[in-house]
């Protein structure tokens, strides 16, 4: 009896010791775990954001640190939002954004739909299609400038061969009318595989039993596509649009390598323009206001998308 009672005593006190591990409460342990992440988030995201907002209200120039910084209030915002050049830059970005997303979603989904059908060499085709996505944007930009060469470029040769137009009669990156399309084509070529992979994941997540049930109900392939495939792959499609939308809104490297914003400023997207203001003209305060405007726009769009995505998922 005595032995049993001595055995039970430590067992009874165990739950008490579970709450406090070596003097630290559960709450303290939780803070120790998430503390570094919160600190990192504050240092890398929140502090620069607050600092940028502060700079956007001044005339600070990063190349003239000895000069007194003047508080200008909302003047930088006023200047940006009344500047026709920046307005044109926004339009160039809208053109790039809309067309790349439309083309990438259409082609990406079609490719995913085809790859999802079981056929011989399926894996090989998937690997080949995914290759452009693995290249560096700087490399892609560089070799597409060669492909777009009017005299020796393969792209011009193929277009000339198919349409009968003289290949040297047009320049994709030198023509004001064609340059916006040149960057759309390259971005679509590079990032369609990414959209395809997301769509493929969506298509492969649809259970076969749903199609079998539809077959039993004699639903046509067309009806199956619109009532099963599209609604069930929609969250994935929306995710792809969200990723590509945000990414293309701040597109920089590919376009700089390809056209450098030219001819003139026809392909100067907002991020290129922002970089010029910040690091070529050194108008840091002005560029900060510009960055805040872009941030609010992307943040707003992302909020809408996350909400829409959650709604679709709940269905």
């Amino acid at each position: 009896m005595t032995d049993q009672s001595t055995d039970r005593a430590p067992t009874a006190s165990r739950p008490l010791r579970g709450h406090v591990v070596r003097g630290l409460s559960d709450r303290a342990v939780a803070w120790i775990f998430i503390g570094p992440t919160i600190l990192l988030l504050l240092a890398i995201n929140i502090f620069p954001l607050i600092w940028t907002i502060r700079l956007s209200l001044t005339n600070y120039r990063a190349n003239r640190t000895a000069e007194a910084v003047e508080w200008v209030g909302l003047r930088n915002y006023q200047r940006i939002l009344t500047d026709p050049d920046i307005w044109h830059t926004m339009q160039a970005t809208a053109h790039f954004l809309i067309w790349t997303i439309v083309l990438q979603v259409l082609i990406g989904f079609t490719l995913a739909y085809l790859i999802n059908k079981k056929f011989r060499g399926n894996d090989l085709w998937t690997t080949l299609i995914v290759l452009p996505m693995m290249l560096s944007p700087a490399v892609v930009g560089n070799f597409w400038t060669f492909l777009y060469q009017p005299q020796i470029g393969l792209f011009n040769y193929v277009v000339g061969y198919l349409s009968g137009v003289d290949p040297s009669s047009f320049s994709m990156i030198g023509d004001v009318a064609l340059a916006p399309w040149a960057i759309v084509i390259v971005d679509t070529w590079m990032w369609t595989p990414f959209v395809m992979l997301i769509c493929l994941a969506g298509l492969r997540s649809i259970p076969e039993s749903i199609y079998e049930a539809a077959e039993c109900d004699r639903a046509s392939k067309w009806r199956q596509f619109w009532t099963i495939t599209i609604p069930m792959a929609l969250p994935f499609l929306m995710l792809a649009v969200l990723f590509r939308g945000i990414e293309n809104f701040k597109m920089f490297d590919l376009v700089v390598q390809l056209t450098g914003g030219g001819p003139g400023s026809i392909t100067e997207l907002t991020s290129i323009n922002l970089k010029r203001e910040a690091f070529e003209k050194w108008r840091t305060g002005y560029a900060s206001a510009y960055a805040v405007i872009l941030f609010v726009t992307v943040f707003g769009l992302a909020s809408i998308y996350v909400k829409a995505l959650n709604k679709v998922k709940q269905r």
Partner: protein
Amino acid sequence: MRALVQDLARLRRGPWEMLATVLIALGVVMLMQPVSLWLYTHSFVVTLVGTVMFIIVSHFPE
């Protein structure tokens, strides 16, 4: 329409979120449209109001 106004008055999340979403979308369209410089000038205020509203109303009860 009357139900929507009532829900807005009772601070329900759904209609307020919808209003914020419409403002954000309108602001983005105004920012990137090629028609009017006046719309472009006022786009940021519309987007900002929509975004701030969205952050606030997402804490409202369902």
